[in-house]
């Protein structure tokens, strides 16, 4: 499957030379760094259990918040790290445009798919690599969903993306505060929040019969 994927990528690459939509470059160094970064990303998600249907669904049922704590902490640590790098050198920061309708509607649709599949677009790839057969169906469904969006883009864009579109907006600009300061405060808030969630989970565990469900690893 992986070999097939590479072959497709190479075959497609041979037929085109344009640079539209490229993220991070197409040179040999970019290709190797991307692959290594992806392997590390996939390995971390697998080792923590984020590619487990049971862990994701039990998080959304608010029965086991392990993945929520992991993910929020990663956001906080990443924020501090990114803006430390930004403060001393070059960081490849890219802020997404803020369009209220499409992001809200898209997020709400995404949440339903998240609870139904028990995967994300990224963790389904990891779970497929682990051998989980249902995750391969989520990836196929994802390809179909992405294609459906592409085929309906000319209707969706004027309805959900163009109205109430404020362009790229980030918190430090809106607040008029230095990014590193905002990142530090966000990280501190996240650390306090995940510690609170952790304490909440520990005080709950012995009193409920749900602990069995929390060990669901598949």
């Amino acid at each position, binding site marked *: 499957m992986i070999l097939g994927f590479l072959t*497709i990528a190479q075959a*497609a690459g041979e037929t085109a030379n344009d640079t*539209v939509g490229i993220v991070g470059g197409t040179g040999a160094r970019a*290709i190797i*760094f*991307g*692959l290594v970064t*992806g392997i*590390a*990303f*996939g390995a971390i998600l697998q*080792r*923590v*259990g984020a590619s487990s249907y*049971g862990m994701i*669904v039990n998080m*959304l*049922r608010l029965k086991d918040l392990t*993945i929520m704590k*992991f993910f929020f*902490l*990663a956001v906080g640590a990443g924020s501090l*790290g*990114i803006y430390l790098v930004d403060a001393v050198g070059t960081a*490849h920061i890219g802020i*997404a*445009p*803020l*369009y*209220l309708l499409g*992001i809200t*509607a*898209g*997020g*709400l*649709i995404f*949440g*339903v*798919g998240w*609870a139904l*599949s028990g995967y*994300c*677009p*990224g963790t389904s*790839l990891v779970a497929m*690599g682990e*051998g*989980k057969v249902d995750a391969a*169906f*989520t990836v196929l469904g994802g*390809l179909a*969903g*992405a294609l459906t*969006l*592409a085929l309906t*883009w000319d209707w969706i864009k004027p309805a959900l993306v163009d109205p109430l579109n404020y362009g790229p907006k980030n*918190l430090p600009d809106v607040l008029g505060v230095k990014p590193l300061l905002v990142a530090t405060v966000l990280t501190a808030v996240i650390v306090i929040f995940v510690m609170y969630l952790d304490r909440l989970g520990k005080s709950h565990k012995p009193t409920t019969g749900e602990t069995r*469900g929390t060990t*669901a*690893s598949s």
Partner: protein
Amino acid sequence: MDLSNEQALSRKRLNWVAGGILLGLLNTFAVATYGALGASRNYVVVDGFIARLLGSDISTANSYLSQMPSQADWLLMVGLGMIVGGFLAALATGTLNMRSVPRLWISRFGDSKPKRFASAFAGGFLLLLGARVAGGCTSGHVLSGVAQLSIAGFLFGAAIFASGIPTAKLLYRKKES
């Protein structure tokens, strides 16, 4: 797989503190080298590749697919790496898992493969439809977006939990308690 094996497997996991810090460091490394981590865009790129291989012209004629790269870039390799990384990590720790239906799903909906595959496919469809309408997913909008203090990321993060939590609770409603 019996329960004691399941518990042994989950005990072998990396704890969330170490995992969270490692992923934060990895995201910092990514942004310092090439760009922020993301997953959902690659689905559109692969759709374009498949269309091209099938001889369809929609990868250039379609207004959305034509905005996508027609060759492998850094971000596409991240996606490929995630599959490899999941495989290698599972192989190294003896946690390769070729199951079709998750245990928690069986406890609620039974062990029918077609039923689970249909839900996994439909879920994937909604995931990528929603992510592409919003312009990113859990990786791009939240892990990377919120870390970069993007307001779109905060909004997307709130929206996915706002529908994900009630949907999961509804799917697993009643049944003993």
